[in-house]
């Protein structure tokens, strides 16, 4: 096996190690709450119709949890997704209300006309404020944990005890209509079920119209106890247009009509709940925990009078309080894992012989008992809670029990209610505090193994000389790395089999990581002398620009410990990029920073290029997205609903400039000649792709009716699929036939030489082996044979990314891609000037690797992303899929490419850093001085002559690049550990860690792919040259 495959195997092993050790850490850090599959149940039913049963109600308090009273009322539950509290308020004095203000006058009308029957509350949701987590909270009464947040698009049946199950079990009937998320959560629980697709966020009306068309018919029937109607229009309107758009006022007015009609159609024994599952931000998003997102509404109207209340309105309740309240009203037991407190004020008063407060006390005590039982069971199953806290809770409960005995009248009862509510609140706080229980052991193992692996790989890659390194990376070492991984798998399987460990994966990750670390340490110890010598040497020869790079790298890792730097990371990365550009320029001798020997005309060009790069980077700043915490307003907030003509023109121009520039480049390289499938696709598909891209955007912006009028039923998604198809086949063909060259027969020579724009490259060493002049084979594009394949692949990927980013963000992406290209040119000039032999060109300066690394991070921010879940561009999932959810893989992949495209593109094009000096030297000779010792006239064919050094250099560069990312992931892991009780950990640090980890995975994969592509090209070039030699000698 040749050396190059050892490199690939090592990279793959590195990938495996990094991924498993990150997973080892996150398995400890992002724990899920244990869901207990225990249910509450009714042992006895009390109808309370006849007197004797109810008179001794207070004697049965000890069995309150297992005793069910008769239903007090039937309930119509309307859920208006993203129903923020201020939407429900009515302020007659507003002369010019915003689109979301004063659109629900029915609520204030009812409060004023029937205050005894109406309640309005601020309804505080627990973060994360995503619909599925909220639905879980609304039906189980429990607190969702962080990890659940990720599974919004893969709905699972809820197996925890919940109110829908309770209703089903106790023979009551529930009807559901609306958001089909419910259908996934509670299949087969409803007597009638009308689900509508929720995934297409751009569709404001389907779900709502569906609900409205069924709702009133259902209310008229008399077999139900609970009707649930889940409206999505307001939420979708927020996502698509934001709360300040006229569509919002339309949707809210629609809701007003629905509420009014429902109130009119209710019979005497029913009540109406209108609740929101969460709020929305000023841009219409949700998911985080800002006040706007968590503050929702609960509006209650009952035909029967409600229990008297002192604080009628503007009262705040928690979302989990809804479940016990609804359970009490419907007369079913409170779900087992509920953490909420019954809201006594909304319980309807049923005429009966006993005073109402007896029933309230009964309900309240059932709630307290249930909660205590839950905590007791949970504490027995897991060691989540602090012993001291638990004892306090149980002690409090006993105290309450004693206190309860003395409750003999309504006034004493009011005091008791306060005590019970405090108790429930206490318990809930205790749960909130420790709910996310970190597995410190797993985290520590992950941190230690990951950091040690990075350090030792760094020592090996950086500390060993070329030959020594090749010696080290032999069959035995690679074999033992893989073998020990296998041993780890087997060992952990055996341990699992004998029940010594409970978790296979963590054990496997740990054992294999430990064994592999042993191999690395062994290698380092074996070569200790060599490593220490060379590190010492490199310390002496370090120059100022290396120091700047080191400062920047260190800082980019350290900044992850500070929440303000994470918030402002886009700014920091912009600053770093500019600093690196200035470093590159200063290397040309400005301010006397370096000794150089370049012409002043070249210097001038370099300065202009540097300025252009700076301007392009700065231009992308307008495309940053704002985080909720920053409290700023971004470019997109105002642009979502109405795109100006200027943006269209900009988007169009950017796309055209991009493909024209790449086409001119490839053509002048001579890589667009001939009829190989790769070349033909590279020539014709980019224009087609941008045509389809623009067509897709245009059609999508049209209102639905106009769209159907113009193009009929033909879906715009076809155009997206054309883009995907061309991208796929283009890349596939580049992998199969990576050489964009055209071999000319000698007799064709004269004809073709006349056409300009072609820089024919004579394969010189082929020629030297060839005595007869007229037999010289002419190969177009051989001088840029390596870079051309990368350029072609990059063009496809970037065009695909542009489509997914959308017309608003895409100009920034193109600008930054040009930055990448121009930096390659600038650095090539300097590297060539510094090189004293060809081999030294294969050592990529650390500042350039760092630039690529910083650029990968900045591209993420520059293309309107932020490491928060609220800011993920879910829109990308609809490009070409039209919101169908049959295959979740494709939408998921699209969102992934949209979000992490920056890491994908920088990772795959990483080998260009190595190739660039050769290609630029051929293509832009005016920038280079002639120099003895380094003859690059043959362009990238020189690489072929030194292919062993090239492949080794590319491998080392890949390792260094990965290590930069690994360093950041490590510091992100460490900062999450340190800040695990920080106020911001679930807002800032944990999402950052998750984004960094995914970015790391994408980087690892794309770097390996890029490296494989080099090997592929190199082998093909080898094949070609050998063939030519055979043919002409």
């Amino acid at each position: 096996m040749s050396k190059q495959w050892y490199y690939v195997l090592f990279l793959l092993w590195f990938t495996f190690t990094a991924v498993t050790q990150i997973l080892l850490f996150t398995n400890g850090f992002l724990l899920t709450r244990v869901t207990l599959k225990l249910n509450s149940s009714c042992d006895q039913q009390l109808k309370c119709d006849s007197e004797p049963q109810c008179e001794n109600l207070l004697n049965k308090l000890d069995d309150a949890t297992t005793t069910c009273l008769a239903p007090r009322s039937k309930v119509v539950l309307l859920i208006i997704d993203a129903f923020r509290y201020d939407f429900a308020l009515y302020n007659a004095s507003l002369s010019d209300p915003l689109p979301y203000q004063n659109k629900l006058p029915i609520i204030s009308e009812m409060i004023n006309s029937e205050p005894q029957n109406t309640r309005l509350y601020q309804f505080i949701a627990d973060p994360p404020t995503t619909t599925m987590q909220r639905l879980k909270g609304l039906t189980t009464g429990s607190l969702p944990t962080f990890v659940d947040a990720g599974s919004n698009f893969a709905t699972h049946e809820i197996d925890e005890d919940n109110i829908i199950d309770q209703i089903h079990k106790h023979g009551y009937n529930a009807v559901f209509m609306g958001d089909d998320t419910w259908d996934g959560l509670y299949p087969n629980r409803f007597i009638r079920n009308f689900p509508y697709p929720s995934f297409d966020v751009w569709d404001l009306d389907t779900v709502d119209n569906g609900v409205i068309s069924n709702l009133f018919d259902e209310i008229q029937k008399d077999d139900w106890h609970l009707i649930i109607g889940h409206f999505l229009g307001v939420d979708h309107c927020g996502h698509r247009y934001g709360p300040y758009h006229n569509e919002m006022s339309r949707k809210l007015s629609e809701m007003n009509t629905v509420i009014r009609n429902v109130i009119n159609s209710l019979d005497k024994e029913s009540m109406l709940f209108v609740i929101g599952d969460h709020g929305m931000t000023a841009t219409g998003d949700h998911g985080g925990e800002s006040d706007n997102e968590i503050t929702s509404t609960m509006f209650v109207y009952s035909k029967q009078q409600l229990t008297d209340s002192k604080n009628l309105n503007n009262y705040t309740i928690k979302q989990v309080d809804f479940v016990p309240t609804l359970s009490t009203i419907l007369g079913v037991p409170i779900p087992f894992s509920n953490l909420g407190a019954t809201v006594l004020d909304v319980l309807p008063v049923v005429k009966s012989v006993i005073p109402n407060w007896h029933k309230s006390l009964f309900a309240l005590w059932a709630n307290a008992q249930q909660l205590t039982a839950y905590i007791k069971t949970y504490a027995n199953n897991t060691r989540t809670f602090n012993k001291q806290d638990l004892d306090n809770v149980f002690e409090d409960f006993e105290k309450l029990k004693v206190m309860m005995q003395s409750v003999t009248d309504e006034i004493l009862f009011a005091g008791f209610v306060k005590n019970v509510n405090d108790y429930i609140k206490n318990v809930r706080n205790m749960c909130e505090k420790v709910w996310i229980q970190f597995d410190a052991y797993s985290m520590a193992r992950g941190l230690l193994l990951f950091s040690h692996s990075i350090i030792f790989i760094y020592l090996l890659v950086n500390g060993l000389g070329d030959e020594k390194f090749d010696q080290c990376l032999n069959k035995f070492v690679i074999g033992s790395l893989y073998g020990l991984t296998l041993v780890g798998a087997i060992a952990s399987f055996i341990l699992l089999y004998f029940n010594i460990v409970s978790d296979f994966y963590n054990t496997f990750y740990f054992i294999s990581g430990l064994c592999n670390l042993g191999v690395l340490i062994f290698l380092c110890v074996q070569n200790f002398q060599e490593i220490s010598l060379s590190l010492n040497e490199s310390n002496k020869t370090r120059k100022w620009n290396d120091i700047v790079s080191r400062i920047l790298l260190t800082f980019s890792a350290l900044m992850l410990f500070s929440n303000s730097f994470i918030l402002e990371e886009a700014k920091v990365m912009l600053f770093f990029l500019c600093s690196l550009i200035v470093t590159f320029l200063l290397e040309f001798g400005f301010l006397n920073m370096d000794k150089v020997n370049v012409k002043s005309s070249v210097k001038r060009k370099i300065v202009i290029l540097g300025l252009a790069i700076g301007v392009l980077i700065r231009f992308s700043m307008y495309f940053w997205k704002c985080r909720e915490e920053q409290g700023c307003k971004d470019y997109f907030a105002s642009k979502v609903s109405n795109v100006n003509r200027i943006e269209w023109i900009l988007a169009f121009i950017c796309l055209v400039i991009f493909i024209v520039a790449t086409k001119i480049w490839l053509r002048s390289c001579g890589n667009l000649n001939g009829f190989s499938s790769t070349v033909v696709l590279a020539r014709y598909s980019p224009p087609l792709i941008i045509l389809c891209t623009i067509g897709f955007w245009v059609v999508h912006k049209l209102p639905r009716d106009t769209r159907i009028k113009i193009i009929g039923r033909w879906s715009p998604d076809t155009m997206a699929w054309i883009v995907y198809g061309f991208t796929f086949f283009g890349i596939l063909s580049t992998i199969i036939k990576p050489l964009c060259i055209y071999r000319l027969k000698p007799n064709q020579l004269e004809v073709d030489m006349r056409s300009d724009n072609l820089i024919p490259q004579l394969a010189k060493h082929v020629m030297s082996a060839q005595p007869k002049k007229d037999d010289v084979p002419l190969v177009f594009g051989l001088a840029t044979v390596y870079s051309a394949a990368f350029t072609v692949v990059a063009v496809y990927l970037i065009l695909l990314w542009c489509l997914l980013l959308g017309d608003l963000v895409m100009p920034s992406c193109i600008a930054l891609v040009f930055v990448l290209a121009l930096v390659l040119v600038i650095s090539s000039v300097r590297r060539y000037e510094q090189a004293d032999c060809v081999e030294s060109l294969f050592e990529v300066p650390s500042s350039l690797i760092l630039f690529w690394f910083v650029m990968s991070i900045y591209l993420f921010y520059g293309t309107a992303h932020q490491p928060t879940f609220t800011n993920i561009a879910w829109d990308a999932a609809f490009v070409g899929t039209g919101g169908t959810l049959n295959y979740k893989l494709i939408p998921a992949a699209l969102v992934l490419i949209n979000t992490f495209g920056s890491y994908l593109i920088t990772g795959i094009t990483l080998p260009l850093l190595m190739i660039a000096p050769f290609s630029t030297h051929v293509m832009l000779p005016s920038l280079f001085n002639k120099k003895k010792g380094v003859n690059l006239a043959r362009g990238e064919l020189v690489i072929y002559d030194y292919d062993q050094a090239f492949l080794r250099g590319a491998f080392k560069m890949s390792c260094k690049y990965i290590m930069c990312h690994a360093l950041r992931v490590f510091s992100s892991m460490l900062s999450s550990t340190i800040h695990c009780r920080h106020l911001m950990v679930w807002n800032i640090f944990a999402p950052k860690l998750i984004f960094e980890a995914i970015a790391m995975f994408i980087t690892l994969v794309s770097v390996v792919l890029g490296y494989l592509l080099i090997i592929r090209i190199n082998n093909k070039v080898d094949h070609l040259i050998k063939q030519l030699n055979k043919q002409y000698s």
Partner: protein
Amino acid sequence: MGPNELPIPRHLIIANGVFTVVAFTLLLLILKLLGVLYAIGKFTSIYLIIILVTFELIKAIARRHLFESKRNSTPKTSTNSFDSILLIAVSLLVFYVVPVLFGAPLFADFEETLMFSTVLTTLTTVQCLIHLGYKQSVKILLGLNTVDAHSVSVSSVVLRNVQCTVFGAWSAAVVIPLDWNRAWQAWPIPCCIGALVGHVIGNFTSTALVLNRRGKLLYKKHSV
């Protein structure tokens, strides 16, 4: 080391360094005590520029007075007022554009950015012009001829000041994103102060280099 440039006496460098360190530290302290330091980004602080220029002029005059009276071999620094003004203008523009590229607002903080640019120009370009004259300044700033960083000459001292000033301004930006909500975190206060501190450090380094042993050896080697 520039052409025709002789090393200057040790004590002069030391005197120069001590003067700068003391004067700049005092200046910063007095501004802080008067409570006007954080107004450094406003046009009202333009007097600061005059003070800074005065410092440099004092140093230059003192040097010429003490040094050139003894040796006449030092070339007269050529003064070309039009070119010098042009150089200052270009430098102002560069120091305006560069922070904007680094992320400062384009026009929103025009006053602040311009003040930053003025402070930096004073500490770099104007300083060069005062001590070295137009031609030498251009050569040094554009790197047309190289200066030995370890030698003890006017140009090496000036150059070190320029480098340290720029580095100081650059590195001081680190405090801007922090969420401490302090008055001094506003652009361009940290960067201006960073530039001033960097300038002091540059002078300090020159003095320290002369004072330590290697500096002495170098000095002897050149001065014999």
